């Protein structure tokens, strides 16, 4: 048994043993779980991919004369203005009113972070305290008082794989799905995935300090659509999408290499987010969880051609099979392709490991762990009462 304090003391002294979630599998294979529990202090996990539920809170500073902004555009991309006078929330999937999905919220976030000037246009209602009705200025990341990345749902614990049994090509958030089971697209980094390495949420919760977008970030708690009740295998790893995280961090100290605006063909705009989460090896149970390998992590293949919330499946496959380049469906070999980057995830896990080893990054014990009992509900299907008996005026 180790404590957060003991591990942080070792980090301070430069004695902490830190390995990535890939490396810990090799150690477990060679020396067993007991050795992992005894030798390893921290395991770094990571993921990098499009995460639509992302965005940034901005404070522009007050204009002279002042304006209470009620409509806001950044490079023609609308931002939410239903906040105080010069506060806004720019969502990653917001679409440019002039360029369509070729440019959107995700791109504005990347451009801001890259130091590019952004055109801010805003309209407001004239009031006694806010006389101005319109502004059009250039802003930069430096000119903002705050730019706080706050992503309501990131780092999915596993994710369904996608295929297409129809006769036409589908363009989805899982990329292109070729007709007649032409390919299987998968997301998540498998054995590197943060929540897969802590399947029962024993170390991740409010306050957990993480790598976010190349800088420091924190876990705020469960993300939207957090679904701990997903079916799980004997090793407790969910068999499809399950837990999620809400994350935040100061955009000003991030790096544009790890936050990338993306346009997914015939689907929309998103933001590719790089996330790294350290997991302290507090005991043997955690040592076993972090040693989980691709071949023991299963996901479910869903048929995206069926336009229903509950889609038919083509069974389960593990990540070793998915990463091999093809899986078997109905006796045929079907090519696979990822839609999240393992290359970048490996890079992030290695960077976080390096930060901890050099004594630059300490672990934070969460104040409150992720809930394990919430249920995922669909939208109520009940008809609107006012429409039921014809229009009532």
């Amino acid at each position, binding site marked *: 048994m180790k404590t957060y304090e003991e591990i942080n003391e070792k980090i301070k002294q430069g004695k902490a043993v830190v390995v990535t979630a890939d490396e810990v599998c090799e150690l477990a294979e060679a020396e067993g779980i007991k050795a992992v529990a005894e030798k390893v202090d921290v395991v770094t996990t990571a993921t990098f991919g*499009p995460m639509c539920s992302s965005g940034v809170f901005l404070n522009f500073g007050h204009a002279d004369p002042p304006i209470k902004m009620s409509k806001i555009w950044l490079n023609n991309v609308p931002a939410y203005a239903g906040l105080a006078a010069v506060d806004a929330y720019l969502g990653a999937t917001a679409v440019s009113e002039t360029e369509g999905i070729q440019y959107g919220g995700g791109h504005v976030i990347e451009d801001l972070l890259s130091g590019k000037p952004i055109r801010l246009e805003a309209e407001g209602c004239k009031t006694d305290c806010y006389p101005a009705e319109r502004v059009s200025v250039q802003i930069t990341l430096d000119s903002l008082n705050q730019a706080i990345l706050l992503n309501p749902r990131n780092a999915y614990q596993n994710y369904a794989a996608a295929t297409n049994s129809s006769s036409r090509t589908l363009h989805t958030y899982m990329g292109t799905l070729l007709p007649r089971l032409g390919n299987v697209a998968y997301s998540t980094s498998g054995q590197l995935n943060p929540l897969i390495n802590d399947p029962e949420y024993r170390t991740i919760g409010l306050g957990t300090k993480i790598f976010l977008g190349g800088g420091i970030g924190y876990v705020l708690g469960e993300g939207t659509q957090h679904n701990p009740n997903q079916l799980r295998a004997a090793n407790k790893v969910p068999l499809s999408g399950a837990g999620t995280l809400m994350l935040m961090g100061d955009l000003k100290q991030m790096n544009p290499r790890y936050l990338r605006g*993306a346009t997914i*063909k015939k689907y929309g705009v998103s933001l590719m987010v790089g996330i790294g989460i350290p997991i302290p090896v507090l005991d043997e149970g955690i040592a076993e969880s972090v040693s989980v390998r691709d071949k023991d992590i299963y996901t479910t293949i869903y048929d995206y051609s069926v336009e229903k919330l509950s889609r038919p499946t083509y069974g389960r496959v593990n990540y070793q099979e998915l990463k091999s380049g093809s899986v078997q469906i109905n006796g045929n070999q079907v090519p696979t392709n*990822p839609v999240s980057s393992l290359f970048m995830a*490996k890079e992030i896990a290695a960077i976080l490991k390096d930060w901890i080893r050099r004594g630059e990054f300490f672990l934070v014990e969460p104040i409150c762990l992720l809930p394990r009992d919430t249920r995922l509900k669909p939208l109520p299907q009940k008809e609107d009462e006012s429409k039921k008996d014809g229009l009532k005026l």
Partner: protein
Amino acid sequence: MNTVTRRVVLTFPANLVEDTAIYHLIKDYDLVVNILRAKIIPKEIGRIVLELRGKIDNIKKGVSYLESKGIEVKPLAQDIYLNEDKCVSCGMCLAVCHQKALSLNKNTWKIEFNRDDCILCEQCVSVCPLKVIQVTF
């Protein structure tokens, strides 16, 4: 003399799009011609992606013939460019690359682009979420 295969991109000036050059490649230079892709619109610049198979001398003579007519001949895949610094190797392009010119290196998990296998179908260009594959044509 050995039979060889070469893939080339022909660019036709607007006044030559109705020319019968391909016929002469087959008839006069004894080349096996396989059209991989073509964009021919009357009175506009046209482009054909060709696979030529035949004796190396005949291919050279055939290419000289095309050039003498004012048709530009370039080796394939010189017009397409993957910006490796900006590519994050997400893998979305793999789904549409039927030639497997784009592939994932299983050691580094980096996307690699093999120009020799590319037939310039350009499907990857619109699928790439970061727009890091560009065609200069």
